[in-house]
Structure formats: structure tokens, C-alpha cells
């Protein structure tokens, strides 16, 4: 299947020549081959959907196309000419613009500047024309049906508003190639409609669009062609409308979806964690639920719905404004992570590198961090105990590493995630909160993590699992809590879990 893609253009039934072609691109990160000899072509007036599971390499491709990474191998051809992108500006100059998956913007700058930084309109004297910049920003935001004032600072905006700014930024560049990496993830249905109208407009102007999304209904609505990535390889392409969804899913995961989630049915016990009317000053309000023994409670919502914030406050990172917490019937006040760990509540953060691990430190030191009190004697480190503890969980999680003393940063994403999970299991918790536990990890590790989560539940651990992936949420959860803009939008039993109900609850309209 791979060999067929060596001639990239072949599959597409189109008369036009490609504006942009990428051939034989490989990108290697320490521990991961994020892209392996992929080729892809973009055509004028066409929307190409890039489809693949988390960690398939989609965003990596986007970063190569926008000049942020320089690929280890391969070539980029624009208008038939070989091009190298020395930096992001070079890509902009060639006419590539992108909405990146993460909103990479400047908190302290104004909205207008965030939109135009690097390509601001100039006056006759080559100086930045603030007036024009602000008025054009206003127009751009207006076309997105938003009336954000371009002169206020970005830090005063909400998550969804920031995404709109990111979209406006991409549109502000006079580009022929527009890349959108999960642009809809944080948007409500109405905002998505506005965006799609704009995409249609771009199509009409003959621009080539690369569109990345995990939501099939959106893809079928907007895209013409598709390319599927799996584990860093392009495994298929074609015309989207002519390809049934099942086929694409099979390409994506390389297997049938049905049994992908090794959920073990366990007898659910009594209540472990009761949350009553939890409120935060600015992030969430009136959240109530009960977590039972052996239960996996899924938490679903759009990005920026406040799921992480809720869970972080359960873990003592942020302070709730009001509300009650009961653990095994006992009322509990958690002021710091130390309190939470002491009570048996632990949190596996979403951003492993930033919140979960000290990347330059060895594996075993990361693993034993919250359990030092047990491995040490009278405050003095005992290396032998540390290695023993680390080894126990490394083996249990099937960690792949050269040695226990290598820096965690040298491991692949999946193995890093195993270290984080191992670190928390070593504290023998009662409740474990997993925030996007499989985000950005390869498919093998992902299945391992899923299997492991099921095992933990079977052992009687109570689990809260945040995920933005519908199949994962539906496949793994006993119940699902849906959040929308900081509010509780529903609590669904396993039998009621369908993609439609969850999405409807999360976006607030159908």
C-alpha cells in the first residue's frame, strides 16, 4: 500500500496540477519516527482532509509545511519548483498559512497584533500601520461573526475567542495554501458554520486547503480529497465522498474498530468520590457527580471546556470557590497536591512534558518522585529501593528504555506516558484522574495504556478519564460526564453512549 504512494499524484482524479507536493518526507524525533517517507499533494480549489489517529504525524507534517521543522529527508515542491523552508517566514513568503493545533499566540500583545505579527501592513515609511492593522483585524474577525475589539490584549480573551483569533491570523496572510489543524476543536456549531463558509470562499478563490479533524461529519461536509496517516506513514488516499467512513477508519487504525477498547466488565462498587456543586471563580461552575469503586468515568467536551481545570482543582492545583468533596464518605478539604496524594487522589496531567515529568531527569527518579517517603530512609535517598520500585512499575507497564537511569526526555511519547502513570500507581492511589491519557502516543502504546486502564479498574481503582476522542470515551467509560464552557452538560450511562448524544451535549446544538 505504501509503494503505491511513491507517485503521489496518481490517486487523485483531477485535471489541475498540484500547487504543492511533498515527496518522501521523513521526520525523526529522539525516540520516535514521527513521519516515515510520506508524500502528499494539494490542489487548487480543493480541500484535502488529513486523517489519522492521535500521534499519527499530522501536526508534524503541518509544522514541516510551515517551516518550523526541517525534515530529515524528502522534498517540498511548490509550483513545480523545489523549495526549502529555512524558517517560518520562508513558508509565509511562498504562500503557506496555517491554523496550528495549539493556539500559539502572544498573551501580552493586542488581538490585532496577534493577527498581523510578522506581516503587518506598512505605511509609506515602512513603519507598521496600526490603524490599518486594527481595521483589517476588525474586518477579518467580523467575517468570522465575531466582534472582538482588536485593541484589547489576547490574555483577556476566552479559549474559543483565542481560536477565532488564530483563524483570523491564518486568513490575514495572502496565501494560496491554507492549512487548518483541528480548527474546530474548540468551536461551537455556529462558529464552525461560519468557518466553513469561509473555507468555501477560499475554495472558490482557487486556494488549496489542508484540513485536519477527528470529526467525520465535518470532514464529509467540507473535504474533497483525503489522505490517511497511520504511525507516521501515509497509508491511503482518494476522493472522500466516494469512500465510506468504515474504510477510512480501517485505514486509520489498521484493524476493525469494534474490539479496539479492551474494556473489562467489572462489578461496580459503592461511591468513592462524591463531588457536590463544585465551582471555580472563572473556569467552571456547579459540577456534581459521584465516582464509584471500579468505575471509569469519562469526561468529554470540546477543548477548553474546562475539564482539565475541574480535575486539577480536585487534585489541589487550583482552588475551587465553593463546593464539597467527599472521599469514601469523609468530607475532605484539598489545598495542595500533597493533600490529594495523601488522600489517595492522583492526577496524570495532559501535558506530560510540562506538568508530568522532569524531562532531563532519569526515569527512576521521575517514577519515585511522589513515593520518596517510602523509598528513602530518614530523608536519605536509597538508590537500590528507588531502582526496585521503578523496575516493578516499568515491568508492569512494559516500559521500553535502554536503562532506568536515562533521562525521561529520551523516551518516546508512549513510554513517557507509561512513566507518568507508573509514577502515580506507585503511590497506591484510590482514585486516578487521567487527562487525555493517550494524547500523542503511538498506536501500540495506546492499546497498552487502554488495556492497563481496564486492568486498574478491574483491580478496584476508581478512574476519571478525560478524553477528546469519542471512540476512546465511548469504548472505555462506564459513564460519561460532558462539559460545555465550564458547565455540566450531561451525565450519560454506558448504554446511552453514542457519538451523537455526546457531541450534541458538548456543542450545545445539533
Amino acid at each position: 500500500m505504501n509503494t503505491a504512494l511513491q507517485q503521489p499524484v496518481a490517486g487523485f482524479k483531477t485535471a489541475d496540477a498540484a500547487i504543492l507536493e511533498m515527496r518522501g518526507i521523513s521526520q525523526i524525533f529522539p525516540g520516535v519516527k514521527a513521519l516515515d517517507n510520506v508524500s502528499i499533494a494539494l490542489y487548487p480549489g480543493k480541500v484535502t482532509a488529513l486523517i489519522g489517529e492521535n500521534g499519527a504525524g499530522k501536526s508534524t507534517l503541518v509544522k514541516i509545511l510551515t517551516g518550523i521543522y526541517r525534515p530529515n529527508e524528502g522534498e517540498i515542491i511548490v509550483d513545480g519548483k523545489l523549495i526549502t523552508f529555512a524558517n517560518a517566514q520562508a513558508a509565509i513568503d511562498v504562500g503557506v498559512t496555517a491554523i496550528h493545533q495549539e493556539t500559539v499566540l502572544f498573551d501580552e500583545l493586542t488581538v490585532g497584533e496577534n493577527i498581523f505579527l510578522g506581516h503587518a501592513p506598512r505605511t509609506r515609511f515602512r513603519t507598521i500601520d496600526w490603524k490599518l492593522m486594527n481595521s483589517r483585524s476588525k474586518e477579518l474577525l467580523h467575517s468570522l461573526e465575531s466582534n472582538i475589539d482588536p485593541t484589547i490584549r489576547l490574555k483577556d480573551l476566552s479559549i474559543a475567542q483565542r481560536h477565532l483569533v488564530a483563524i483570523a491570523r491564518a486568513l490575514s496572510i495572502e496565501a494560496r495554501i491554507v492549512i487548518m489543524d483541528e480548527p474546530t476543536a474548540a468551536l461551537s456549531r455556529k462558529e464552525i458554520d461560519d468557518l466553513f463558509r469561509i473555507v468555501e470562499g477560499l475554495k472558490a478563490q482557487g486556494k488549496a486547503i489542508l484540513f485536519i479533524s477527528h470529526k467525520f461529519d465535518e470532514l464529509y461536509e467540507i473535504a474533497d480529497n483525503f489522505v490517511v496517516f497511520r504511525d507516521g506513514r501515509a497509508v491511503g488516499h482518494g476522493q472522500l465522498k466516494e469512500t465510506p467512513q468504515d474504510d477510512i477508519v480501517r485505514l486509520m487504525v489498521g484493524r476493525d474498530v469494534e474490539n479496539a477498547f479492551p474494556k473489562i466488565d467489572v462489578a461496580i462498587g459503592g461511591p468513592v468520590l462524591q463531588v457536590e456543586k463544585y465551582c471555580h471563580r472563572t473556569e467552571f461552575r456547579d459540577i456534581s457527580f459521584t465516582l464509584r469503586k471500579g468505575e471509569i468515568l469519562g469526561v468529554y467536551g470540546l477543548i477548553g471546556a474546562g475539564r482539565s481545570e475541574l480535575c486539577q482543582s480536585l487534585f489541589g492545583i487550583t482552588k475551587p470557590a465553593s463546593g464539597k468533596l467527599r472521599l469514601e464518605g469523609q468530607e475532605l478539604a484539598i489545598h495542595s497536591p500533597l493533600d490529594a496524594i495523601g488522600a489517595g487522589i492522583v492526577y496524570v496531567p495532559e501535558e506530560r512534558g510540562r506538568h508530568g515529568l522532569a524531562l532531563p531527569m532519569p526515569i527512576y527518579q521521575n517514577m519515585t518522585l511522589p513515593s520518596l517517603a517510602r523509598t528513602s530512609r530518614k530523608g536519605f535517598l536509597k538508590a537500590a529501593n528507588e531502582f526496585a520500585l521503578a523496575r516493578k512499575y516499568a515491568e508492569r507497564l512494559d516500559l521500553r528504555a535502554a536503562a532506568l537511569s536515562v533521562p525521561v526526555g529520551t523516551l518516546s511519547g508512549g513510554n513517557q506516558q507509561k512513566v507518568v502513570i507508573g509514577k502515580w500507581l506507585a503511590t497506591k492511589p484510590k482514585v486516578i484522574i487521567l487527562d487525555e491519557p493517550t494524547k500523542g502516543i503511538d498506536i501500540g502504546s495506546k492499546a497498552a495504556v487502554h488495556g492497563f486502564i481496564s486492568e486498574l479498574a478491574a483491580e478496584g481503582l476508581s478512574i476519571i478519564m478525560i478524553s477528546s476522542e469519542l471512540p476512546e470515551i465511548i469504548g472505555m467509560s462506564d459513564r460519561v460526564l460532558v462539559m460545555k464552557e465550564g458547565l455540566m452538560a450531561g451525565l450519560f450511562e454506558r448504554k446511552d453512549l453514542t457519538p451523537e448524544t455526546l457531541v450534541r451535549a458538548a456543542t450545545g446544538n445539533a
Partner: protein
Amino acid sequence: MSTVVSTPSEKRVIPDRLGTPFKRIMSSWEVLLFGVAVLIFIFNSLASPYFLDAWNLSDATFNFTEKAMIAFAMALLVIAGEIDLSVAAIIALASTAMGAAAQVGVGAPGLVLIGIGVGLLCGMFNGFLVSVMKLPSIVVTIGTMSLFRGISYIVLGDQAYGGYPEDFAFFGQGYVFWVFSFEFVLFIALAIAFAILLHATNFGRQVYTIGNNDFAARFSGIPVERVKFILFVLTGVMSGVAAVCLTSRLGSTRPSIAQGWELEVVTMVVLGGVSILGGSGKIGGVVIAAFVMGLVTFGLGLLNVPGIVMSIFIGLLLIITIAIPIIARRIKALSSK
């Protein structure tokens, strides 16, 4: 199911460590620095006939012992990602307090307690501003630097305190046995104590973790604020100890005492291989850096090189020793491509 979850048969054993201990040690910063120290030592013995003399070398240790004591605590602070520029000012304030106490007849033990106590209080004040008020340490301690020394000026003005009790002189001028001064022995003892604290205790591990990733540390239940507070207090206390030694050595106190030491202490810490960005460094490196700086200034002093020219050497040494590993890494990366 097409993906294999894990097959017990292929369970592999992960070794604890890679390579031999010898190889690990040889490739460390400390060895590089030790090499530098040895070279300077050889150079000095060739350049000046006066260098290789036990008493002269013993005198030379006074050039760095007091600064090094602070540098140990500062190393921990820098590893944790903070900095304290007020250390020299703390010395001034602590020394002033001791001087004032000596005037009313407080004895040597009392003076030591007062010196260290004032250091402790100053450290607590810095710690409070940084960990409770959550202010950036570099600007906070620029402020307290003026404040602490300023208080000394208010108390002393153009006066000086002298008249320390006889037995107080021991801390800065006494010898424990043969050529080994009390200060030098204390320096060694503190080096060992700090090495144990940083490298062999839970607290030390927490310091590293905070420096490497403040968030991850917090998310792992480490009381980040408390650890930082303790580190500032520790740095204050060590400044107090240095104040005791220096005051005893000088036998008098003026508010301008130890002027400019903060930068020398930071230089010592950075030269010792402690990353100014936090997260890495060893006490051993700081000890060697103390010797390097002491040997350079003493050696050049024997050649009667003006102090300010010596500081050029120290500045160059700082930049070059930091740059060498970076350049080496670049070359290695280039040649492996």
C-alpha cells in the same frame, strides 16, 4: 484485535544504568574543571617560585573560603531556578549586628549566634517575598541588596565597629592544625554537608526536580514554595556564617564590607557547572570552581597582576568554560551528520 497489547514472553530486563561508572565520571563537567584546576596549579608553580609553599597556599585559601560557603547554598538555590543577589548585603547587615552586640559586651558564642541569626532573618525575608508573594527573585534580591546594606549604613554611617573579643578572632584567623585554618576546615565540612544534602537526601531530589520542572514538581506533590523558602533561608544562614568568618578575619565592621561579593559568588556557582537556568549542577563542581578562582587570583597576585586584570581572566574563564561544552556538542553534531 490486531494490535498486540503485551506478550509476557518478551519481557525484557531494563538495566539500572548504562556504561561503567568510570566512563560516566570521566565525561562529567567536574572532570573538565578539575583538569583546568590542575593546569592552573602547574602553571602557577612554574610561574612563581613562591607558589608551592604550604603556608602560602594556606593563606591563599582565605581568598575563596568565605565566598565558597555562600556559593554552596547559592548553588542549591540556582539549581532550584532562583537566585539571591543580596548575599553580600546580608554579610554587611549581619556583621553590623555583631559589631553592635560586641560593643555592649556580647561574647564570641553570642556573636556567632547573632551573625547567623541575622542571616536567617534576611533569608526569611527574601524567601517570603519570593515564595509567598511569588515575586521574581532576581529583582527582589536587587531590592533587598540595597535594603540590607542600607540598614547597615543607617546604623554605622561613617563609623566602624571594632573591639571584638579576643576569642572571636579564632573563626577568621585561627588554625585547627598545622596550616589548616578554621575557615578551610569549615569550608571542607560544609562542602561535605551540602554535597550530602543535595545528592543524598529527598530534599536534594526535590531541589533538582523544582529546577528541572517547577510544574511537574508541583504536580508531584512537592511543596515547591516551602522548598524555595528553605533554600533562601539556607542561603541567608550561610551568608551569616560567612559574615562571622569575615568579620572575625577583619576584626572590624564597616557598612561597605564584602562589597561586590554577590557577583563573585554567582560566578563561582556558574563556573562550578551549575546551570543558571536551574536543574543541574553538583557541589563537587562548586568546590573545584572555588579552588580555580582562588588559584587564579592567588597565582596572578604572586605575579603582581592588578586585580582588575585578574577579573578579565575570571570573566574569560567563565565564558570559555561554559562555551566549550556547547561548541564541542555542536562539532559533534556536525560531524555525525
